C-alpha cells in the first residue's frame, strides 16, 4: 500500500469528483423511473450499452458527434418506452419482485443480442480530447466535459419537473399512485413518458460514457451494480440523495483504486454500502422510509 497525502492523492480525489458527475447522471434516470413507477430496471445499464453502440455506429457512419449523441438519446428513450410497453406494463399489478426479475430477462437478452450483433471485441470512437495538466496532476478533458454535461442534464430534468405541467403531473404520480388517476392524471401516459425520459437520461449518459470508456456487450455488468448501489444509498427514488451518494461512492472507487488495486476500490465501496444500509436502511440521505 502506498497511500500518502500528496499530489497524486489529490489527483485521485478530484478525478473521483469528476467520475461522480457521470455516475450521478446514470443514477438519475433509474431513480426517476423508480420514484414514479416503483419499478427497478435491472437492465438499466444494458440500455446505456445499447445507446453506446447506437452512438458508435452513427459516429462511424459519418454523423458528427453531437448528432450521434442525439441519435443515442432518442434510441434509448424509444427502447425504454418499448421496455415499459412490452415488458413492464403486463406485470405492473403483480408482486414487485416480478418486475425486477422480468427486466433481468431483458438484461440477458440485450447482452446476448449485442454480442450477436457486434461481437465481443472492445470498441471505441477514437476521439481523444487530451488532458489538462495542473501542477503534477492530469485531468482528462472528456471527464471534465462529462461532469459539466451531467450537471446540465440534471439541472434540465429538475427544471422540467418543477416548471412544466407534465413535470408536475409526474411528481404528483410519484407521491400517490392511487389517488392521482382519480384527479384526472392519465397514469398510463405518465408512466410511458417517464420511462422515455429515464431512457433519454440513460442515452445522454451513454453519450458521455463513449468518450471515456470502451464499448463491449458486458459493460453493463461493470456499471449496473454500481448504479443500483448509488440509488439505494441515496434512497431509491430520491434524486438528490442519489446525486450525493454518487460522490461518496466515486470517492471510494477513485481513492481506493489509486491506493490499492482497482477491484479493492470497488470491493470497499460495496462493503461500505452494505454497512451503511444496515445503519440507515432508508438510504444515507433519505428522509422518508
Amino acid at each position: 500500500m502506498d497511500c500518502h497525502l500528496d499530489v497524486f492523492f489529490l489527483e485521485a480525489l478530484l478525478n473521483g469528483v469528476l467520475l461522480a458527475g457521470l455516475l450521478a447522471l446514470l443514477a438519475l434516470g433509474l431513480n426517476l423511473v423508480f420514484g414514479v413507477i416503483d419499478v427497478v430496471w435491472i437492465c438499466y445499464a444494458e440500455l446505456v450499452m445499447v445507446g453506446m453502440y447506437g452512438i458508435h455506429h452513427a459516429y462511424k457512419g459519418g454523423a458528427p458527434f453531437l448528432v450521434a449523441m442525439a441519435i443515442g438519446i432518442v434510441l434509448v428513450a424509444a427502447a425504454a418506452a418499448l421496455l415499459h410497453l412490452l415488458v413492464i406494463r403486463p406485470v405492473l399489478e403483480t408482486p414487485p419482485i416480478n418486475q425486477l426479475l422480468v427486466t433481468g430477462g431483458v438484461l440477458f437478452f440485450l447482452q446476448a443480442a449485442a454480442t450477436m450483433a457486434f461481437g465481443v471485441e472492445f470498441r471505441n470512437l477514437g476521439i481523444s480530447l487530451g488532458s489538462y495538466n495542473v501542477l503534477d496532476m492530469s485531468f482528462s478533458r472528456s471527464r471534465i466535459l462529462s461532469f459539466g454535461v451531467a450537471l446540465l442534464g440534471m439541472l434540465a430534468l429538475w427544471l422540467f419537473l418543477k416548471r412544466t405541467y407534465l413535470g408536475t403531473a409526474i411528481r404528483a404520480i410519484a407521491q400517490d399512485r392511487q389517488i392521482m388517476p382519480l384527479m384526472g392524471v392519465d397514469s398510463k401516459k405518465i408512466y410511458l413518458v417517464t420511462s422515455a425520459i429515464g431512457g433519454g437520461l440513460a442515452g445522454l449518459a451513454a453519450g458521455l460514457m463513449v468518450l471515456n470508456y470502451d464499448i463491449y456487450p458486458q459493460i453493463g455488468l461493470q456499471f449496473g451494480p454500481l448504479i443500483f448501489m448509488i440509488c439505494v444509498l441515496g434512497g431509491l427514488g430520491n434524486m438528490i440523495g442519489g446525486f450525493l451518494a454518487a460522490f461518496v461512492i466515486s470517492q471510494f472507487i477513485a481513492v481506493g483504486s489509486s491506493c490499492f488495486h482497482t477491484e479493492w476500490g470497488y470491493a470497499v465501496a460495496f462493503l461500505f454500502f452494505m454497512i451503511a444500509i444496515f445503519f440507515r436502511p432508508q438510504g444515507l440521505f433519505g428522509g422518508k422510509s
Partner: protein
Amino acid sequence: MIPLRLSPAALAGFVAVALLPWLVRYAFAASEKYYLHLLVQILLWAFIYTGWSLMGRFGLTSLGHGAFTGIGAYVTVLLWNYGGISPWLGIPIAVLAATVVGVLVGYPCFRLRITGHYFALLTLALTEFVRLCIVGLRDYTGGSLGTQPTRHGDGISLTAMQFEPDRVLSFYIAFALWLFGLYVWRLVDRSMDRYALEAASQDEDAAASVGIDVTREKLKIIALSSAMCALGGAVFGQYQMYIGPDTIAGLGTSLNMVFAVVAGGIGVMLGPTVGAVFTQVLSEGLRVIIQNSATIKGLLGSAALALDSAIYGLLLILFIIYMPKGILGTLLDKRR
C-alpha cells in the same frame, strides 16, 4: 426428524433417475461421457436451485446466492491448494463460512425489515463484493481466469475428493446430493417454520402480532439456504476441477438461480429441478443445433454462440409475464 414416507410414484421416479446411467450406456453408448456430464450438471444445479428456492419461495428474493456458491467453491479449493486441507474438512469449513456470511448479512436485513427491491439489491451488492474479493486476491484465486484444485494423484482420489474422471461415480454423488436437497425441502415444507414464513411474507406485522419471531424464522431459512448453496458450489468445483468467478460466483450465477427456479416453478418441490433440466437442455440443445446447422452458422457466424442466451432471456420474460408459476407449477395447477 420426519420419517421418509415415499409414495409408490415418487419411489418409482427416484429409481428411474437412479437407473439413468444404464439408459445412457445403452442408448447413447457413443457419447456416454457427454450425456453423463449433462446429467451431473443438471443434478448439481438442481440441488443449488433447490437451496435458493428454500427462501425464494417465501418472497425473500436473494441475488446474493452467487456469493454463497462462490464461497463454498473457493474456500474448499483454496484450503486444499494452499493449506493441504482435504475437502472432507474443507467443505464443512466452507459451508460454515458461507452460513456465517449469510447470517451476518441477513440479521440486519431482517431486523430492519429490508425486503423486496432493497433486499434484492443489497444481496446483489454482497455478490459483487465476494466476486471482487475473488478477483482481487488473484495471487491465490487466479483472478478472473479462475483456478483449479491441485490434482491428488491420477484419476480418482478419496482424500482429495476428486471423482471427476469416473462419470458414473460423479452421477451418483450428484444424485445423492439432489435427493438430500429434496429431503431438506420436504422437511421445511412440513415444518411449522413454513407457515410462519408464509405468514411473514404476506404481512410481517400480522405475523409478529401472533407471536412469530419473524427475524429468527428468516435467519433460520437464510442459514439453511446459504449452507446448501455453498455445499452445492463446493461439490460443483470438485466435479468441474475448475472454479472461476463467472462460472460459480458473481451476478450471472445469482440471476441464473433465480430464473431457473422461476421457470421451473417456485413453490413446488421439483420446480427447481425442472428449471435445471429446462435451462441445461435448452442451452445444450441450442448449442448442438447451432453446431450442426450450416444455415444458422452461415447467418450468424461466431455470434451464434450468444443465441442461446438471447432465447433464454426472451423465454424468461415470457415466463414471468404469462406463466409466473413456472412450468411445473402451471402443469400441477392444470391437473387439479
